[in-house]
């Protein structure tokens, strides 16, 4: 049941990200709700289910993007896998650690996406790349806590 609720929240987050979030952008950067859901899934579910939710959110994101290859599908699964492995070594049980984790994951995700795009021959001005790499982790971290608390209330057993 909690997996179904989480799946519904994931779909709702995706739809909000492609519609309403466009009106809440800071310097053309918007919050990555799907990435937040992916991190929450990795923190809350066992590896198998965490990978399933990462795959699902990655496919959702790629389907509405301009990429021919599913960059987000691969990266989301990689982050999900690494977070699950990291949790066996480090206790990520307080808000500060979770915020740090989401900031690092967003930073790495944007950095890798930027490098992959540049490698594919897409020329993006350095200022724009810098803006995305710096602003995106800050914005995503700000939205992480409210969404985490909401999911915690919606499916309490999983968190």
């Amino acid at each position: 049941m909690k997996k179904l609720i989480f799946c519904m929240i994931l779909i709702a987050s995706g739809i909000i990200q492609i519609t309403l979030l466009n009106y809440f952008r800071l310097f053309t950067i918007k919050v990555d709700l799907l990435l937040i859901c992916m991190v929450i899934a990795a923190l809350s579910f066992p590896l198998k289910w965490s990978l399933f939710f990462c795959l699902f959110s990655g496919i959702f994101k790629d389907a509405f993007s301009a990429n021919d290859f599913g960059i987000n599908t691969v990266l989301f699964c990689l982050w999900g896998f690494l977070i699950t492995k990291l949790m066996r070594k480090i206790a990520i049980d307080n808000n500060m650690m979770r915020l740090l984790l989401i900031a690092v994951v967003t930073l790495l995700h944007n950095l890798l996406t930027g490098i992959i795009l540049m490698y594919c021959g897409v020329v993006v001005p350095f200022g724009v790349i810098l803006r995305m790499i710096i602003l995106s982790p800050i914005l995503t971290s700000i939205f992480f806590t409210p969404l985490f608390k909401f999911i915690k209330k919606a499916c309490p057993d999983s968190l």
Partner: protein
Amino acid sequence: MLNLKNKNLVLYLLVGLLILFIASSVYLLNNPLLNISKIPSIALNSVRRELFGIIFYHHNYIQNERLENEKAFLRQKINSLNEIYLENLRLKKLLSYKQESPFKVIPSKVIARSPDNWSSVVIIDKGSSNGIIRGQAVINNLGLIGRVMETAAFASKVMLISDPNLSVSAIVQRSRQEGLITGTLGTQLIMKYLPEDADIKVQDKIITSGMNQNYPKGILIGSVVEVAYEFSGLGRYAIIRPAVNLSFVEDVFVIIR
């Protein structure tokens, strides 16, 4: 950190290969997802419209009054222009002018946008069932918006000119200087491959050159805000402000012929 055993390693490799396979076939899921997303997107857009209507009631009231006055003025102007248009038609017929056929367009609404910050894509509510095919140009009353990059039966994906993957052959309206417009993911565009002695100035209008069949000649792209030398010093580039505010585009036309 990982401490992987041989058995687990094989399993992880298999899962990794499966994920790579799925990632490379993600484009197959685009069409069904585009079609499915249409209904919730339209519903959410309606909710947003109603909410904004309530929040900006005072602003809308004042704007409505101003627009009513403007409407009356424009109605008079349309009447007078209609007369001139009819007169023009009659004279052209008399002089046997060859009239170039205007664009045939399909009006459409933007229902969703790209979820990530690394691409500028919008989803529109018309698809292949309405006669839209890949590659067609998308405009609005102010100028060029982008190009159709994918179509499903009832929705299409449009790549905006602010996306760095999209390049449009363009000319300076005043001097006919040619160049290539590319997106930057920001609010401005870059016109590249200008020679050192290019005749281009700030505030020049940039239009499509018609070199590419998909973009008819003469569609306004934007105006020049800055001209500078490239790092190599061999050529110049210009920063262009798009005629259309691409962040908040809502109604578009797809040129189908």
